[in-house]
């Protein structure tokens, strides 16, 4: 199974709030889990990524939490800002690294 399931489809958060996006996978061969941010009219840009050997990775306001046994990972955006309004894709790739499988995406809106 190459599928990555992402939820929610859309998310509305007030400025200063916490945005949480969840992803789940089935393929145990996945060993690299990046999150991409995509603004309208732009290509996806890498936001943050994690490997299964750590349970959490933090970069500024963005944190990935990883639960290997549950095969789930999530993105937390602290102190969400209107400029964070974008579509967020979780993704996963196997050891070979040649196929990046994306989740369906979450459209985040941060209201001022």
């Amino acid at each position: 199974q190459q599928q990555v399931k992402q939820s929610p489809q859309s998310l509305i958060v007030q400025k200063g709030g916490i945005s949480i996006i969840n992803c789940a996978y089935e393929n145990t061969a996945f060993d690299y889990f990046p999150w991409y941010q995509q603004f309208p009219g732009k290509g996806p840009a890498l936001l943050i990524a994690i490997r299964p050997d750590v349970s959490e990775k933090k970069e500024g306001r963005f944190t990935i939490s990883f639960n290997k046994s549950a095969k789930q990972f999530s993105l937390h955006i602290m102190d969400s800002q209107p400029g964070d309004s974008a579509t967020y894709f979780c993704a996963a790739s196997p050891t070979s690294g040649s196929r990046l499988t994306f989740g369906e995406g979450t459209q985040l809106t941060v209201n001022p």
Partner: protein
Amino acid sequence: DTEVTQTPKHLVMGMTNKKSLKCEQHMGHRAMYWYKQKAKKPPELMFVYSYEKLSINESVPSRFSPECPNSSLLNLHLHALQPEDSALYLCASSNRILSGNTIYFGEGSWLTVV
């Protein structure tokens, strides 16, 4: 700003036309990719080149023909496309085809087939 440059940004073509999308990267990456993205959907992998050789073709119809002239350039030749092929075509590159290598995307070429 992305270091993967794609041209043209917008392309409108008829179903009998032949056109090409171009992509260039100067990061010294040896893996290059074409993805297709429909509105409100994730990118879908089409082709992967590794060291200028086609490594993966995700069963893409032959009306899409990729070409990698050198390590910095990637083309996608288009011929006899259908309206359902209208989408954002994303080029990407990574250091190598290895897990953990960041894949950098260009801004894409918006293709409309009429």
